[in-house]
């Protein structure tokens, strides 16, 4: 069964993941992750940090690895970027999981019927 991780991506943690650092349990798991398995991040930070050029760079890095972003939403008159609601994270992960299962099913049925 595929593993999914929905995590709070705070500023420092996001930099550690993008830089390949691993000095705690979470970042060590990410550093050893098999990127054929889905990995989700749900960031949360102030808007000025979200708009900082480093953030764009780090998001580019993690996107390149195949990590899926669940983007934050503006709150407090756009002063902050809050993590999306847990229900949204759950539905996003479920949808991704269902889609993957469907693709696997289609893949196995087309193989068994002699199609490549």
């Amino acid at each position, binding site marked *: 069964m595929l593993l999914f991780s929905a995590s709070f991506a705070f500023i420092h943690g996001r930099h550690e993941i993008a*830089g*390949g*650092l*691993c*000095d705690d349990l979470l970042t*060590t798991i990410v*550093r*050893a*992750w*098999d*990127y054929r398995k889905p990995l989700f991040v749900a960031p949360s930070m102030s808007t000025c940090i979200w708009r900082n050029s480093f953030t764009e760079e780090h998001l580019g890095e993690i996107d390149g*690895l195949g990590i899926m972003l669940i983007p934050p939403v503006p709150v407090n008159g756009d002063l902050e970027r809050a993590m999306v609601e847990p229900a949204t994270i759950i539905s996003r992960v479920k949808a991704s999981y269902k889609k993957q299962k469907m693709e696997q099913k289609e893949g196995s049925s087309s193989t068994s019927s002699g199609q490549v």
Partner: protein
Amino acid sequence: MAGSEPVRAEGETMAVDAAPRKPRILLAASGSVAAVKFANLCHCFSEWADVRAVSTSASLHFIDRAAMPKDVILYTDDNEWSSWKKLGDSVLHIELRKWADIMVIAPLSANTLGKIAGGLCDNLLTCIVRAWDYSKPFFVAPAMNTFMWNNPFTERHLISIDELGISLIPPVTKRLACGDYGNGAMAEPSTIYSTVRLFYESKAQQGNGDI
């Protein structure tokens, strides 16, 4: 000036007819379970060279300090902070960088590899690396779980350190401490020692004893 002693690049004076001194090797350990072999590595080198050792706080979980050679000083982050009291005092990571002819990090953990590749310097070891003179030899012997070794970050980081001129002593495939079988185990201390010594002696032959 007639009769004055020649001065080396780092400001260290040398007697004109002095016998060639032993090579100065700075051995360092970062936080991998392979650091259990660090005392053994220090013993391998201490017969041949003047050795000083550096350890990260994570590596101290694995290093048996009692087994270290008696003549080898083991420096930690605590020494970095306690040795500096006021402006004008020497800075430990700079002093060690000046002192060493060769640096060897064994084991090099995935985390410290990432820090070096990114130019981070938040402890004694990475501050020495950040100040290193890359005209002097620098070897690393990585040690990590196979999943980490095969992770895409490792290749990126190895390319970065290769561009700096750091020489890789690659890990070997064997049963790892965690029980997994695969690539990522640190090369044996004897292999690390012979690699460094062969390199040093071949360079010394080419350049009349100076690296």
